[in-house]
């Protein structure tokens, strides 16, 4: 499994594979949007603003998931000094950053008609903002620290510290009273979302996942080429 992520394998990925994935993405997103905007019913109390959820929930999932991968890759990077891990983490950071912004903005748009307010500082919203700040810190370290080894170490430490924030985001709605509602989809009990709304949510999640994979493959390929080029320069 991991072998697939080695440079030679990634570099041999042809543009055709990525183009195929883009076609798949277009199909899945088209079905997902049609389902979530037209077929699925409005909510009994929120009305049509429930449709924001079909973007909000998947982007939050991906934002948190990406950071989990970045954190784990950073641990492996510091422990085993694996050359690929920083490149892997770096390519994921942009995706997670964008999706955490989408999550916060769509959540805010939903909050105004539902709660009656754009933003509150409750535990869930605050911890999600902290995740966004960790993404910004992580990306800025790579951007502004010129020496590769230094940037690598500092960004890894930032990612590992940020890892502690993830369970806080996940369980904030259970540990403390928050304005944000608890999770509707849990591993332990049946979802509290009616299936006519759960189906478009899952399709939209798949669509956004495919999008993330495409961006990741393209970015990872670029990072590997950049890394190889900079190493060549050093040898000369």
């Amino acid at each position: 499994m991991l072998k697939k992520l080695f440079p030679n394998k990634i570099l041999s990925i042809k543009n055709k594979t990525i183009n195929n994935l883009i076609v798949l993405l277009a199909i899945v997103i088209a079905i997902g949007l049609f389902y979530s905007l037209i077929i699925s019913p409005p909510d009994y109390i929120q009305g049509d603003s429930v449709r924001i959820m079909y973007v909000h929930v998947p982007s939050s999932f991906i934002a948190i998931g990406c950071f989990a991968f970045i954190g784990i890759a950073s641990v492996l990077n510091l422990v085993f000094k694996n050359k690929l891990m920083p490149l892997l983490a770096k390519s994921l950071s942009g995706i997670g950053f964008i999706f955490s912004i989408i999550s916060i903005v769509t959540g805010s748009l939903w909050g105004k008609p539902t709660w009656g307010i754009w933003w509150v500082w409750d535990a869930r919203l605050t911890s999600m903002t902290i995740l966004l700040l960790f993404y910004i810190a992580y990306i800025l370290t790579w951007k502004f620290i010129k020496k590769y080894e230094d940037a690598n170490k500092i960004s890894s430490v930032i990612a590992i510290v940020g890892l502690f924030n993830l369970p806080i985001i996940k369980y904030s709605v259970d540990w403390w009273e928050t304005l944000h509602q608890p999770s509707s989809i849990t591993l332990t009990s049946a979802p509290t979302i009616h299936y006519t709304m759960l189906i478009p949510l899952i399709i939209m999640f798949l669509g956004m996942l495919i999008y993330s994979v495409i961006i990741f493959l393209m970015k990872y390929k670029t990072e590997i080429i950049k890394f190889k080029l900079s190493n060549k320069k050093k040898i000369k």
Partner: protein
Amino acid sequence: MLVKKVKSRILFLFLLFISFSIIIFVILKSLEENVVYFLSPTEIFNKTDISLNKKIRIGGLVKINSINKKNTSINFIITDLKNEIIVTYEGLVPNLFAEGKGVIAEGNLKDKKYFLAKKILAKHDENYMPPEVKKALENTNN
């Protein structure tokens, strides 16, 4: 098996992990009062040190048949099914504000049973369903 260097790095990260977990736990524990977004009527009832000047938030359900509108002001009761607080508010309430639904009021306590709200927020729960399903559920319950 593992190189000694790698072993020491794992040990270092492990100790870092433990100490960091403890630090974060202690910080969150000490900040608990601020992390909690609102208090329930029962928590207000059990609280001994209540300052009437401090802005606080209380939350719970709007008691059924308790909403009383007079011109621009509105009276209702927040309940957690054990204790109740009477809330007075002047202004517009959110669209989702309704009897039997979650609500959060921000303002000052006049005493343990009476609250003067400056802001009203509707709290949504984790249930999502189409209107027809809601109706069907109500019919089976009645």
